[in-house]
């Protein structure tokens, strides 16, 4: 085991001496954690709306003011011509058109019904969907108010209405950052771990020093441990910086559940992840190859992990991929423990699966790592 001591000394010296790697490991994650959660926000605001108002009645104005005061919409155009509004959409200045017909007020009052027309620019699907949905909700509320004004409850019983009162558990203010920050932290630990680890080993191949190591009595497992342990430690440090400094101080996210549990899972997760890095390095001869392969694997890992898009809404085949993705489980555990306060019993399954991943990737990598050819 004294070999391991010398290997670790060497490894840490090299890492801390690398002037370009060190900022990459410690500064980049902080910057990303500061920037990305602010940008990766699914709540859509500032939807540009063009309103074509043929009626210009008090009611139509009331509806318009309800829409603009909701905070979701920005009135980009107000007029009487649908064509002018359509031009706005074509120029991409507007996302939605709401057309209020002539006699909107009259028909609403006299005939108790009126049809509004909404046209949605569906190029940005998410924005269009949400915009349409928000608008319908606002119109629905408007409708209910009008109903109350005109149908006096004294004359006859109002039609029964269902009023839905919703409450958002575990994230009561629906703060998107609470949801994104833990996920992005996983993303960063993943990037740092897998990239750095595979590049580091391949560098020794490229420079030729691995040849020198291979003629020494260093055992295969010692060499591999000597490579994994430093990056395991770095992964934990990066995670801690993210969790305690950025998430807590900047975003005010304090894990509801046990921090020990998070670290326990992180420890196993990093072993699995470094196994992937090690595996990539055994298949690559140059750092460029390793980088390309690692990039490919990481993209799949991250996009299929439920970080940005919910796994539940993926097609079946994609769900299967997500199930074989270690990142998926860590993101789940992070969100469960940090937001919901889940305990060990709730994530036992995740622990077992992650341990299996760790065993699988590392066994494969070790079998594939050869001292001799």
């Amino acid at each position: 085991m004294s070999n391991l001591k010398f290997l670790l000394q060497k490894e840490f010296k090299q890492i801390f001496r690398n002037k370009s790697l060190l900022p990459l490991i410690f500064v980049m994650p902080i910057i990303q954690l500061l920037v990305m959660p602010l940008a990766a926000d699914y709540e859509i605001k500032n939807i540009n709306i063009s309103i074509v108002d043929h009626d210009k009645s008090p009611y139509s104005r009331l509806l318009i003011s309800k829409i603009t005061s909701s905070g979701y919409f920005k009135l980009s155009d107000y007029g009487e011509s649908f064509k002018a509004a359509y031009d706005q959409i074509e120029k991409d200045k507007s996302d939605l058109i709401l057309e209020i017909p002539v006699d909107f007020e009259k028909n609403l009052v006299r005939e108790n019904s009126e049809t509004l027309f909404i046209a949605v620019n569906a190029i940005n699907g998410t924005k269009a969907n949400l915009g349409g949905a928000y608008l319908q909700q606002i119109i629905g509320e408007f409708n209910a108010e009008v109903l109350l004004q005109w149908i006096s409850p004294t004359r006859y019983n109002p039609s029964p209405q269902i009023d839905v009162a919703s409450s958002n558990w575990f994230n009561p203010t629906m703060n998107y950052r609470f949801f994104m920050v833990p996920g992005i932290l996983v993303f960063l630990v993943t990037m740092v771990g897998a990239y750095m680890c595979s590049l580091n080993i391949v560098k020794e191949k490229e420079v030729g020093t691995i040849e020198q190591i291979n003629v020494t009595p260093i055992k295969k497992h010692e060499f591999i441990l000597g490579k994994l342990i430093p990056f395991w430690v770095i992964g934990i440090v990066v995670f801690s910086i993210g969790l305690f400094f950025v998430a807590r101080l900047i975003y005010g996210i304090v894990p509801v559940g046990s921090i020990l549990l998070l670290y326990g899972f992180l420890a196993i997760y990093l072993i699995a992840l470094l196994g992937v890095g090690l595996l990539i390095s055994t298949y690559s001869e140059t750092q460029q190859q390793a980088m390309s392969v690692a990039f490919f694997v990481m993209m799949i890992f991250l996009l299929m992990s439920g970080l940005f898009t919910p796994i539940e809404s993926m097609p079946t085949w994609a769900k299967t991929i997500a199930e074989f993705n270690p990142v998926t489980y860590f993101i789940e555990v992070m969100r469960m423990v940090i937001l919901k306060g889940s305990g060990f019993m709730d994530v036992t399954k995740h622990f077992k699966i992650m341990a299996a991943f760790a065993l699988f990737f590392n066994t494969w990598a070790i079998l594939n790592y050869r001292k001799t050819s």
Partner: protein
Amino acid sequence: MDKIVIKTDNLTKRFGDFIAVDTITFDVKEGEIFGFLGANGAGKTTAMRMLCGLSIPSSGEASIGGFDVYREREKIKKNIGYMSQKFSLYEDLTVAENIRFFGGIYGLDSQNLKIKSQEMIQSLGLESQKNKLVASLPLGWKQKLAFSVSIIHEPKIVFLDEPTGGVDPVTRRQFWDLIYTASERGITIFVTTHYMDEAEYCNRISMMVDGKIKAMDSPANLKSQFSAESMDEVFFELARGAQRKAD
């Protein structure tokens, strides 16, 4: 009779259809400086890698310091030193750190390590450079340091693969002084080179052509055998018949 430390018998390495090393048989005695010559692509490095336990032979037998290259590679590794064609110290570690690292993994205890490293730095004249990164040293010094590091554990045999490539004549001369010193201590030297003046320094040399050993004797005997003035002529005489193109 001198003890034999390297013994090969019809050692062969194939890569698919290509026979890189073709049934080579030779012995190297303890304390000998054995020159392993041949044109580029003749199979020298492949043969050497087999002897160091880096590559498994396709067929034939070989034993290094009494250990079998198939079954006892880990034991071989404890008893040999190796300096590869590529410079193989860590450029981002200092001179002292490299010595400490390689000494450490060869099992030198900290007491011994301290003495050894001091001795080595002194004999190489690197006192003022010992805390400088290896990357900042001139090539000649790097090579001398690499050689000293490769024998830090006093191995029985040291394998040197073109150790003086790209080094100026003065430094080469100094390098060979180091080799002689090591040889006097009883370390067997197995060296490949392209410099024929260096071949003259060897006790015995073998000439490899197209994966086969074409000639093997002392430099003087080889010269008289081929009625040549210098080793250069011997080399040309033998390498002329090569089928393989140099890479």
